[in-house]
Structure formats: structure tokens, C-alpha cells
């Protein structure tokens, strides 16, 4: 049974939901308060959605300075799996652990709605259990989810298979329909949609299951670094 650290910043609000997804698949979730500086014994880290530090300044801008982020960086550097969902994704890009930036949605409104995602790469801890081209219905819930990067970064993302998920119909103006990206090694992944909200047919979709199974290593081989 894996021990998954769910980082809680003041202002996070999806930590219970992320933990529920982990325990639903039989693993153990442990809340990690943002002032902690070690991740001893933790097998994987989730930065959940919400509004860390109120999202004041920019989403993720203050959170990336939280003490726990040093430990998360070290954990990632040793190949540990790190997943940033929504606000967690915003924290990871602000921290420079993932390339690019997230801007306000094209329509300048918050959007909470189901989207269809297309798996574009399986060389990441999140998508390794899925198949390329597979369509997954997963809701989005964000104001600043429009993925932005310069041409050079984009070329590199494409070349390395770092674009892991794309929207089938772009809801927010993201460059190249990008919904989620990984780092070069594939062990750090961020996505704007909320797979933890798609874990049960009672709530509308169970398509997030294949992503969490990948992340938690259920039903798939342990992750091997791509590079």
C-alpha cells in the first residue's frame, strides 16, 4: 500500500477529495501541512486544487514559497511521483517544476463543467495506464487554466511527449488544447481538470480512475524514468 502525501496549503480546498481518490483505490493518504519540510516515508505527492494563500497575487505565486515546496522539489528530483491538480498545477509552474504558465481563461470567467480529454502521451506517471487517443470525461473547475508557453518550450514539449492530456474541445484558450503536461522525466505531472472528481458513476464519470491507477501504480508496472 502506497503512502501518498496530500499537501495542504492554507486555502487549499480539494485535499479531502484528492485523499478520497487515493483511499478509494486502496492506498493511504496523509495530509502534509505546508510548513512541513520533510516527506519521509511518502511514496507520492499530490498538490490538490483550491486557492492556496487565496490565490492572491497569482495562483500559486505565494504557495511556491511555502516551506514544503523545497521538500517536494527534492522528492521530484529523485524521481518521486508528483501530481498537481488544478491549483496544484499552478503551484508547480510557478515553482518552475513544470514549464509554461497558466493565464486567465479566454472567456474571463470561472468555468466548472465536464470536458472530454484526449490522452496524448503515456510516458508520465499519470497517463501510463491509459492508451494514446483514449477519451476521458473529466470536469474542469478553474479561472486561470489557459496554458501558455513560448514556441521553443512548446516544440520541446511536443518533441518529448510532455503534453500528456489535451482537451477535445478547448474550453479556456489553452495553447495547443493543452490540459496537462509532464516534466521531461514524466514523474511530475500537472493538469487543470480534476480527475478526483471523476471517480464514480454516481457523480457522473469514473474516467479519472485510469489516471489515478497510473499515478498510484495500481494495475501497471512501477514507473520507469523515460530518460
Amino acid at each position, binding site marked *: 500500500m502506497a503512502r501518498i502525501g496530500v499537501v495542504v496549503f492554507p486555502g487549499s480546498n480539494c485535499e479531502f477529495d484528492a485523499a478520497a481518490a487515493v483511499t478509494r483505490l486502496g492506498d493511504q493518504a496523509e495530509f502534509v501541512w505546508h510548513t512541513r519540510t520533510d516527506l519521509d516515508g511518502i511514496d507520492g505527492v499530490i498538490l490538490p486544487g483550491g486557492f492556496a*494563500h*487565496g490565490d*492572491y*497575487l497569482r495562483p500559486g505565486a*505565494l504557495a511556491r*514559497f511555502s516551506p514544503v515546496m523545497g521538500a517536494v522539489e527534492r522528492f521530484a528530483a529523485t524521481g518521486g511521483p508528483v501530481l498537481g491538480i488544478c491549483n496544484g498545477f499552478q503551484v508547480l509552474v510557478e515553482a518552475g517544476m513544470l514549464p509554461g504558465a497558466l493565464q486567465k481563461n479566454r472567456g474571463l470567467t470561472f468555468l466548472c463543467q465536464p470536458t472530454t480529454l484526449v490522452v496524448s502521451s503515456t510516458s508520465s506517471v499519470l497517463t501510463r495506464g491509459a492508451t494514446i487517443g483514449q477519451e476521458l470525461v473529466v470536469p474542469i473547475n478553474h479561472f486561470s487554466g489557459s496554458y501558455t508557453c513560448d514556441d521553443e518550450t512548446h516544440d520541446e514539449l511536443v518533441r518529448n511527449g510532455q503534453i500528456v492530456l489535451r482537451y477535445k474541445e478547448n474550453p479556456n484558450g489553452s495553447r495547443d488544447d493543452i490540459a496537462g503536461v509532464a516534466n521531461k522525466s514524466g514523474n511530475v505531472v500537472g493538469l487543470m481538470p480534476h480527475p478526483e472528481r471523476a471517480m464514480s458513476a454516481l457523480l457522473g464519470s469514473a474516467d479519472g480512475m485510469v489516471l489515478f491507477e497510473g499515478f498510484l501504480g495500481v494495475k501497471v508496472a512501477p514507473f520507469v524514468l523515460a530518460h
Partner: protein
Amino acid sequence: MNYFVIVDVTLRKGIADPEGSTIERALPALGFTGVTNVHAGKSFRFDVEAESEEAALEKATSLAERLLSNPVIEDALPRIGER
């Protein structure tokens, strides 16, 4: 003539500024000391086609008050800027 105008929108005095206070509270932990009274505002930059600088500022003022700010809580200050 085309004039380049900048409109600074700030919260009126006495209005709570949660964003500014949150940033201020966070600073010491990030190693920034001696920074106080932090306030967050917005700014808008645009070109105005007008006869004179005055006319441009007048147009910008009306735009600022009608669209870019709510005078009940915000002050809007237009000025001619340098590009």
C-alpha cells in the same frame, strides 16, 4: 493624434485590501523585510485618438470611471504615459 494613456485603478482609502494585506503578511517568510503598506491595484494601457492631450485625458477619465472602475470603492487616475 494618438495619445498613450495609462489608467491606474486603486482601492479607495479605507477600503479593505485583502490581496495587499495577504502579500504583506507573506513577505517576511520569503525573506523580504521592511516592506509595509502593500496595496494591490490594476492598470490599463491604451491609445486614444484625440485632438489634444487634454481631450485624450478627458476621454480616458470617462472611460476609467464608467468602465474600468467602480467609483464606490475604487479611484481611477488616468495619465499620459510613455511607451
